[in-house]
């Protein structure tokens, strides 16, 4: 029997796309994006970036660098001055030394750093342990790098913290690394030093690497951020990923860095030089200025986020939604279980009925089901109005 022409064309199309790409689940927020585009008067708590624009002196410096003709490729690893400044910065903030020549690589955002790290260390079938829920790119990047993401469920009761015990249960002979990002997107969870110490100890015992995405590391409220690499014996075992997007409000510049031991940085640089060549020079120039003189703005933004955080969390709790106290990043992750809806249903109906956009927790993993991510990187006025609308919505839909 001959297949019909339509099924034939379907088959043909499919054969062009690699299995691992075809089998990647589509982004959980795409549908909402399309819905949103057609609506007006929407307050969006669905963003994943600051509402501040990059501080003017940083933008101005980038403009100046363009005027001076800085438009060329840079060294694969990134401009020496930027690596030196980063080395000083990491020493100053975390007391850790990275050799700017051999142990720091400038990347196109943390996104590229993550991809490079995974591709540099994974052989096909290697397993990477990831908390669930987590940032949407983690499992996808592991898969694309030929690895297998292994999820460790985290729960609200435990403040969405991953623990050494939970990790230990998932370790197999194929486990290569643990990948997490704290402060966390989507939960705002911060891992305490003691817990990180236990995880570090486990990593050393079982010879695992830790890929630590610390892009929200500067955005913590009333607690300290612990840089994993600073823990005793962990520098060579940690691939530290960080960037300028969140702390300096520089998301669109796509500029970040990776720091680790020589061998790993050299391996990542090898991939980077063939696939990316270098990060854009104007972004690197802007990053130099950010490191040199951006501290004041970072502090001011952190203060403002903290005010908004308190308003958001209290508001959500006043509505009757249980919401654990986020101590970092700029997200609250309330439970919406009292409505009896799935998180996707909640997000969709909230958007249609009250024009407030949130991201369903299920987009971040199975354990995000029953929660929604509310970003408070938006003006206090908007947060307050969004909370009023959410209150109406939740009270209308309380589970009978």
């Amino acid at each position, binding site marked *: 029997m001959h297949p019909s022409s339509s099924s034939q064309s379907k088959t043909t199309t499919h054969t062009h796309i690699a299995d691992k790409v075809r089998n990647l689940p589509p982004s959980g927020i795409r549908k909402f994006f399309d819905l949103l585009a057609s609506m007006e008067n929407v307050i969006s708590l669905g963003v994943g970036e600051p509402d501040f624009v990059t501080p003017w002196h940083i933008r101005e410096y980038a403009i100046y660098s363009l005027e001076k003709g800085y438009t060329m490729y840079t060294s694969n690893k990134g401009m020496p001055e930027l690596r030196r400044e980063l080395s000083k910065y990491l020493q100053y903030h975390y007391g850790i030394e990275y050799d700017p020549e051999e142990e720091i690589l400038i990347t196109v955002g943390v996104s590229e750093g993550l991809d490079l790290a995974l591709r540099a260390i994974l052989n096909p079938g290697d397993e990477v342990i990831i908390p669930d829920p987590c940032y949407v790119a983690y499992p996808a990047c592991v898969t694309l790098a030929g690895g297998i993401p292994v999820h460790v469920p985290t729960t609200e009761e435990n403040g969405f913290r991953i623990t050494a015990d939970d990790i230990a249960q998932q370790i197999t002979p194929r486990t290569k690394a643990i990948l997490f990002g704290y402060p966390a997107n989507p939960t705002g969870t911060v891992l305490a030093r003691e817990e990180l110490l236990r995880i570090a100890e486990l990593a050393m015992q079982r010879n695992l690497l830790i890929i630590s995405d610390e892009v929200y590391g500067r955005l913590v409220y009333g607690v300290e951020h612990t840089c994993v690499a600073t823990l005793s014996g962990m520098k060579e075992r940690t691939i530290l990923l960080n960037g300028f997007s969140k702390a300096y409000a520089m998301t669109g510049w796509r500029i970040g860095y990776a720091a680790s031991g020589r061998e790993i940085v050299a391996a990542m640089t090898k991939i980077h030089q063939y696939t990316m060549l270098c990060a854009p020079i104007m972004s690197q120039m802007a990053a130099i200025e950010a490191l040199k003189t951006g501290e004041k703005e970072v502090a001011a933004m952190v203060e403002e986020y903290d005010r908004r955080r308190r308003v958001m969390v209290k508001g959500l709790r006043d509505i009757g939604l249980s919401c654990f106290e986020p101590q970092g990043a700029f997200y609250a992750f309330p439970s919406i279980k009292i409505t009896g809806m799935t998180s996707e249903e909640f997000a969709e109906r909230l958007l249609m009925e009250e024009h407030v956009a949130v991201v369903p927790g299920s987009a971040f993993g199975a354990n995000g089901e029953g929660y929604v991510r509310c970003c408070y990187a938006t003006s*206090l006025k908007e947060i307050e109005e969004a909370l009023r609308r959410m209150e109406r919505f939740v009270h209308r839909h309380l589970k009978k």
Partner: protein
Amino acid sequence: MKQGVKQIFKALEADARLTPEQISTMTGIPVDEVKEVIKKAEEDKTILKYKTVINWAKLGEDQVWALVEVKVTPQRNVGFDAIAERIYQFPEARSVYLASGTYDLAVLVVGRTMQEVAIFVSEKLAPLEAVQGTVTHFILKKYKEDGEILEGGEGAKRLPLTP
């Protein structure tokens, strides 16, 4: 001052209409303590007053502002303070600063018309005994006031939904 208490003033400086309850939520300081701090600050003039920044041009209200440089002769014992006091009593003088450089006092003057400002400068300010001379700069356009950009700000450029 405690870092936390300072947050109360920062919040109020950004938005004077915040209630003690809202400030309490934003800072995590109990509402009674917020009220107490504000009351004390009002009494000891740490908080001078609550005001609103208005873009009068939008109301079609004409206002003429001028920055007047004033060169004065300081007086024995009281330096610049006595002459500054004579000047700041005039309601037309909205702000008065002692400045370093080629002149001594910077006076921000407001009137309904250019003529009103000119009359104030020529008939009240310039003739004061200690005043050696004045230079009046009329303000042609206000771009930014009290940290607020008055016009030309652009809307959000963020995508409404990002992971």
